[in-house]
């Protein structure tokens, strides 16, 4: 199930209806709570578009509370549900804050550009990046095909794909693998 969350709406609903900037930790924590409330109403498995299009400023503290903490929570084995995220409407200035916090926590996200293409942002090792890019080219693909396309040894590919899924960058679908964002 694909869910859409407009961050500026969550901000106005959870913090103050006059705000358009995502600044300060308490604001970020309140917005993350708002996102998690919406996620709790979805099924066990979901893909959520987190939309920054109408957000003015995003500072480091808010990026940490919203993006990093959300990802870390759902990448844990104890995550409340199998949730994936696609980040949309991310401007250059948002990216500055987001990249900084992703680097700090060794995280990565999938961001969707205006033309609909998806890109990886953040910290990612080379085999993971190659596997993700191969998946992006092939669409839904089996592990063996991805190993061939990405030039990864067959005995290593399951580990690499497992890491991509754990990090919420790819998902298993009908016995194959697909990048987050390919199914929107």
């Amino acid at each position, binding site marked *: 199930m694909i869910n859409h969350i407009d961050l500026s709406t969550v901000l106005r609903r959870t913090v103050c209806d006059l*705000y358009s*900037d995502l600044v300060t930790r308490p*604001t970020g924590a309140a917005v993350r709570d708002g996102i998690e409330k919406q996620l709790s109403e979805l099924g066990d498995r979901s893909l959520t578009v987190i939309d920054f299009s109408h957000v003015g400023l995003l500072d480091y*503290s808010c990026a940490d509370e919203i993006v990093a903490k959300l990802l870390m929570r759902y990448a844990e084995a104890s995550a409340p549900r199998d949730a994936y995220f696609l980040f949309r409407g991310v401007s250059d*200035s948002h990216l500055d*804050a987001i990249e900084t916090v992703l680097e700090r926590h060794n995280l990565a996200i999938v961001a969707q550009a205006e033309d609909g293409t998806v890109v990886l942002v953040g910290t990612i090792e080379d085999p993971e990046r190659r596997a993700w890019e191969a998946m992006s080219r092939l669409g839904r693909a089996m592990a063996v095909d991805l190993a061939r396309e990405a030039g990864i040894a067959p005995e290593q590919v399951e580990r690499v794909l497992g890491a991509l899924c754990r990090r919420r960058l790819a998902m298993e679908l009908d016995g194959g693998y697909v990048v987050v964002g390919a199914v929107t």
Partner: protein
Amino acid sequence: MTTVINLPPSLDERTFETVLEQLAPIPIDEKVLLDGRHTRWASPYGLTALLTVAQTRAEKPALVSPESEETGSYWARTGFFKHAEDLFEMHGAVHRARASGESDVLLEITSVAKSEDVHEVVGRIQQKSASILVKELNIDAKATMGFAMTLSEACQNIVEHAGRGGWVAVQTYRWQKRLGRRVVVIAVCDAGVGFRQSLESAQGRRMSDRWDDGMALEEAVIRGVSRFRDPGRGQGLAGVRRYIGRWDGKLSVRSGTARIAIVPSWDEDVPLEEKLPPFPGAQMQITIPERITDR
């Protein structure tokens, strides 16, 4: 008994030390009178630090406002008197704000105590700063968001760590003597617990043998250490450092008896000063110079 403290003719980050030197031996419950009659100029740091001094005194201090109408008018334009009237017993001329072309107050002196105040500050600075940063300081339009981010993180330092409210002000002016260029200056001052005490409050934190205000500043400003165990903390000041590095700016932070600075090539400041006269809380100044473009 009231002790008279003379304010220097030019009240800025450096000369404010003379004020603190005069204050150092005076018990906080003793009355002081800050004499600003001969002060002709004050930076955002000077004005916000003055308000901060008042917060540190148990006995309400007195302040004599500048004799110069031009100076008094500028202080009024920054919103200084609005706050000073609550914190000081005011003496001397009552000044009103007059328009002036030479200095631009981007953000009046604003009280910062809670998250909502940071939203307010960020909203106001974005409206006012974008065109000035681009047209007068030749700073890339994209960087104006970074400027607001920097301001946000600097203010959050008060909300998250000071334990009491502080002050922020932003102004642009021509720094003729030192630089011959325009600069935009952010000053953020509070009279809270300061960096050393804030880091000491971290659970399970082990202090080294040399643990003092200077080391606390090095930990927080250079190494991004925070009192919180959350590994996401400490990114705010790191972000401020990155921004000033990108725009050849200067960052200085004073806390307790020490002051640390990230010094650009155009300035001759020292990276760390210790054994300064004590000043509770934390005082930060960020200076971004006009960008020289090839024409």
